[in-house]
């Protein structure tokens, strides 16, 4: 048999049919939905007069619009409230399990899917949200779709998709002090640009990846979309199986044994061919920070913004536009630059490990006076765990408070908006213009780098505080 990549193995086993010269009809094992990209898809079903084909394969949560304070009270913003209520109504009508506001399983769709064990190795997973790529950390094919495609999955449990090309990114070696998964992915994107993997599905491999926890792997896969990839995945191993075992929706008893047997075969064959392969060394990666308005504009925290001559001529106008928005200059050093806001949270870094890392660094120190910090857990379960582990006490002593879970200032659909002109060191995934509020200036970084900025009030190498 021809050697296959992990991606091929999963994809091929989910193809129901192929349109000649066209896309595949791809069967979907898990469909996540939230309030923002689903209402029009539900309306579509209603207009066609058809039911939701496989409601048991669908899981819903409210996350993008919800406030991070007073979640026990009705949502103040009218349009947000209506959108969340519409989700409740739709889930009830079409028989979908919803973990809405107030439910102990509520949280960001990509955080809860993993922590509930609804996401499992070898699956196909979609959601009307580009960061669905997060779930690839389990060795599954997971990608974001549009609302028309949400409706396709509702109607048929399938999407029409052309098969993407395959890329492998190998990262060998040992990570340095204060260098985390977030730095790995920001480094890769800075090397290959925000469109460097468009048209590809990426497999991450190599010793540096294998050494990472599941939560760290999710951070890496989460940002695959930021280099244009449809998704990213990592072959499952003991770390994966250990994580999934015993979770709410994980197989139990004999089913577990059977599943494990299958999952152990989920790896790329030794001679399988990728359309593209890239190699990076873990030792070359430093704590990273972005200076511009796309996630590809990243540098080492002690590095300098490129000079204009270093940028290809065609890209110079975009480069200068980005620096103008950020009020930075070419060739400038960022370390020591004052910061106004710090945001810890999002589907990239709103998991318990991220809060642990932040708390460990701020322990025994005090929040800088000029900083407003928003620490937002990714789910109710993460929130609960942060209390149980005493992390909230550590944060309090250092002058921080934990808010309630949700997408929050990652995309600022709720009230958590960074004011125009202010600088925000953010653990989220996008530094686009206006992403954290109109005029907000976002610097993407790891939870450790965010913690360092929160206690010093300026851009600081976290290694210097550890």
């Amino acid at each position: 048999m021809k050697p296959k990549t992990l991606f091929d193995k999963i994809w091929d086993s989910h193809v129901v049919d192929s349109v000649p010269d066209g896309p595949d009809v791809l069967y979907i094992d898990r469909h996540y939905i939230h309030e923002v990209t689903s209402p029009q898809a539900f309306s579509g079903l209603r207009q066609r007069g058809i039911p939701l084909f496989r409601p048991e394969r669908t899981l819903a949560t409210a996350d993008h619009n919800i406030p991070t304070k007073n979640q026990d009270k009705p949502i103040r913003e009218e349009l947000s409230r209506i959108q969340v209520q519409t989700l409740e109504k739709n889930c009830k009508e079409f028989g979908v399990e919803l973990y809405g506001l107030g439910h102990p399983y509520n949280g960001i769709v990509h955080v809860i899917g993993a922590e509930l064990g609804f996401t499992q190795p070898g699956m196909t997973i979609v959601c009307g949200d580009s960061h669905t790529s997060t779930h690839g950390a389990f060795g599954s094919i997971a990608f974001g779709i549009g609302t028309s495609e949400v409706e396709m999955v509702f109607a048929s449990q399938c999407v029409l998709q052309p098969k993407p090309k395959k890329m492998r990114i190998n990262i060998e070696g040992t990570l340095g002090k204060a260098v985390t998964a977030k730095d790995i992915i920001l480094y890769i994107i800075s090397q290959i640009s925000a469109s460097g993997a468009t048209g590809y599905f990426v497999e991450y491999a190599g010793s540096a990846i294998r050494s990472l926890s599941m939560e760290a792997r999710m951070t890496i896969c989460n940002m695959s979309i930021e280099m244009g990839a449809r998704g990213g995945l990592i072959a499952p191993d003991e770390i994966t199986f250990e994580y999934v075992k015993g979770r709410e929706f994980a197989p139990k008893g004999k089913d577990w044994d059977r599943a494990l047997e299958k999952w152990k075969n989920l790896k790329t064959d030794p001679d399988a061919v990728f359309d593209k392969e890239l190699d990076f060394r873990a030792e070359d990666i430093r704590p990273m920070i972005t200076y511009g308005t796309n996630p590809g504009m990243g540098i080492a925290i002690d590095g300098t913004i490129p000079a204009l001559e270093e940028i290809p001529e065609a890209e110079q106008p975009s480069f200068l536009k980005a620096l103008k928005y950020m009020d930075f200059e070419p060739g400038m050093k960022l370390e020591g630059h004052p910061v106004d806001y710090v945001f810890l949270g999002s589907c990239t870094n709103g998991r318990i490990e991220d809060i642990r890392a932040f708390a460990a660094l701020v322990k025994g120190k005090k929040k800088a006076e000029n900083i407003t910090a928003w620490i937002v857990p990714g789910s109710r379960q993460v929130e609960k765990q942060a209390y149980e582990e005493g992390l909230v006490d550590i944060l309090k002593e250092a002058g921080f408070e934990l808010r309630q879970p949700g997408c929050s200032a990652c995309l600022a659909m709720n009230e958590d908006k960074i004011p125009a002109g202010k600088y925000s060191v953010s653990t989220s995934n996008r530094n686009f213009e206006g992403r954290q509020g109109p005029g907000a200036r976002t610097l993407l970084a790891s939870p450790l780098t965010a913690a360092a900025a929160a206690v010093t009030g300026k851009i600081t190498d976290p290694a210097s505080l550890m």
Partner: protein
Amino acid sequence: MAIDKFDILTSTGVPLPAENVDTDQIIPARFLKATSREGFGENLFRDWRYDKAGKPVKDFVLNNPKYSGKILVAGKNFGSGSSREHAAWAIFDYGFRVVVSSFFADIFKNNAMNNGLLPVQVSEEFLKKIFAEIEKDPKVQLEIRLEEQTITLLSTGESEHFEINPYKKLCFLNGYDDIDFLLSKKEKIMAFEQQREQE
């Protein structure tokens, strides 16, 4: 629920030479709270188009009376970022039927095609020429012939072939709907499910 049929379109173009135009710029997150597909055109490129006081920004291209038409001509890597289909809805709702660029982000491309908005990918050189010609004369017409898969600058007669998946081309030419197609596969899908149960 079929999409609009598309065959030949001749129109002036609206130039937006910026690269990496992400879907957060096309339609900012705060406008995603609607529960229907209509009305997004009003807020297309909201933060580039209007200032903080809600006044039109004079030098933004959509506010410049010189430019009009059903074709948006944009820089490289158009539609990156969020998967929000609202971006495609907003562009369509505003009145565009085609987006020309030298490179499209994947999810945006799918979303556009699922809504009858044709993404036409041209070479960097041809894109440059289009921008230059529109700058010289905003009245210059572009002609897109889907059957032949060509885009032509009518001022110079220069033409380029563009790629489109044959299945998607058929959908555009006939106004087909993917969901009707998938529903016609229901028995195959159920047989697939049964077979996987047994494995």
